[in-house]
């Protein structure tokens, strides 16, 4: 699976297009797209673990939350510069990822989903009770240092982050390692029967996923400038991540990206019509219909239309 000329053209076009976008769209749209970028990062993170290896995580906000809280607390309470706090946040998230990994080495399927969901709920409770002087308790934190000013700059930073992660993951997943992770998702016993340590492969997928989630969470909180536990650990946030990956197409990189942009736009354009939580019903229905129609995701639809 070597690089082809059209790969370069497509990636080059995507990068150029995304960086030129602020010239033509409004600041309001840019703010929406910033969220889409971060959602894409989280969906890619989810997919590296769950889409590839089949270990479905229902607790990704746990990882994102560790990254976000770590850097928020370090910068706001201890005046640590972001150059230090963000790497530390990523490191902490990976250590936390290891904690989730331990039960995952033995269990699979719905139990794994439940365990990860429990981790998320646990963190939600913990940040509210333990040391509210640090975490801001139930109300969360505000006045967190932001890295950029204005919609355009926030858009450039999030776009650069998202494209860096997407491109490096895409390259990584084109190697034999990507094939091995996908093989774990298809038949773990046969992977072991091919002489590979599935524990090591799973550990790699977990740590990579945690790395991306921590990095995304940290940058996201430094974009928002505030952190509300109720939004971070909202089940709808979790589902938006998962549905983005499923809808776009799992076990790909472009899939979760497309899914994230699709979901963000859908939620945004439904907002004037349906301001409340009913929006989530609508997107649930749309997701379900699309998923039934094309379980391999939007990315497959795009491939099919471009071939036709």
């Amino acid at each position, binding site marked *: *699976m*070597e690089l082809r000329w059209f790969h370069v053209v497509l990636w080059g076009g995507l990068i150029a297009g995304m960086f030129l976008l602020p010239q033509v769209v409004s600041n309001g749209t840019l703010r929406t797209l910033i969220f889409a970028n971060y959602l894409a990062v989280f969906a890619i993170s989810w997919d590296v673990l769950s889409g590839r290896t089949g270990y479905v995580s229902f607790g990704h906000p746990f990882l994102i939350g560790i990254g976000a809280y770590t850097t928020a607390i370090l910068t706001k309470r201890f005046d640590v510069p972001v150059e230090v706090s963000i790497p530390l946040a990523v490191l902490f998230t990976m250590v936390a990822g290891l904690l989730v990994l331990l039960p995952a080495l033995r269990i699979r399927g719905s139990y794994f989903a439940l365990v990860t969901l429990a981790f998320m709920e646990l963190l939600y409770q913990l940040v509210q009770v333990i040391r509210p002087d640090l975490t801001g308790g139930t109300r969360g934190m505000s006045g967190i240092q932001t890295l950029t000013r204005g919609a355009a700059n926030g858009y450039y930073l999030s776009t650069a982050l998202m494209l860096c992660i997407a491109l490096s993951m895409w390259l*990584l997943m084109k*190697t*034999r*390692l990507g*094939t*091995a992770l*996908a*093989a774990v998702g*298809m*038949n773990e*016993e*046969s*992977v*072991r*029967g*091919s*002489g*590979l*340590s*599935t524990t*090591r*492969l799973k550990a*790699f997928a977990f740590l990579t996923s945690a790395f991306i989630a921590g990095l995304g969470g940290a940058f996201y909180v430094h974009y928002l400038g505030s952190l509300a536990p109720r939004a971070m650990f909202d089940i709808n946030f979790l589902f938006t991540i998962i549905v983005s990956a499923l809808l776009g197409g799992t076990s790909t990189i472009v899939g979760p990206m497309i899914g994230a942009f699709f979901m963000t736009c859908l939620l945004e354009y439904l907002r004037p019509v349906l301001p409340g939580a009913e929006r989530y019903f609508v997107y649930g229905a749309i997701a379900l219909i699309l998923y039934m129609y094309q379980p391999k995701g939007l990315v497959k639809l795009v491939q099919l239309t471009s071939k036709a």
Partner: protein
Amino acid sequence: MSAALEVSGLVKRFGGLVATNDLSFSLQEGESLGLIGPNGAGKTTVLSQIMGELRQDSGTIELFGQEISALSTSRRIQAGVSRTYQIPRPFGDMNVAENIRVGLMPDDIWKLIVSPPDAERERELALSVGLAESDLLRTPSELAMGDLRKLEMARTMATAPRVMLLDEVFAGLTAGEVAQISELIQSMRKDGMTFLIVSHDLPALEPLIDRAIAIERGIMIAEGAFSEVMNDKSVQASYLGSV
């Protein structure tokens, strides 16, 4: 000289059922041993214990003189033993070449990232088991049972075993496919491969083995040349009983 594979006093219980009951046998390097017995006799369970997919309750398993019971399945494969499954277990969303690629992978994450797949070797292995060039890009769902077994053989051979354990290699195959697989096994025997072969198809098995052991309910009931084993009274009784 130590045996290629030496199993001693192997016991495996599933609750009250003793699936392997104090089983001992050994295989010299380059030898081919048939393992026969009626359905449910415990043949597959023996293979799974040798591979470490099931842990025995007691007994030892030595590969080229090394006790492997404490090793994980992947370590055992690296030590030189590999198996095929009664029901082939391919990677469903991957084509034939990619399936073989997984078998060829080193157990080293860094190498998996930096060194590219060896398409030539994948092709070689596929052709050597009798798959066609045009099969390389097919997915398992597009293959007939015979080709699935060939793919299973190719992926197993890709791990570079010195001892191969084959589970019901002929099940579900046409006469032509049986002949093809038999030919493949014969040529590998000539090259010095050591085999432990489980099969229900006794006429097909006979020419492929030097010796046979028969088990029933986990207990060895006969051992020796194929004809001796087949003429053994308890073997005949157990086969009659099972039909």
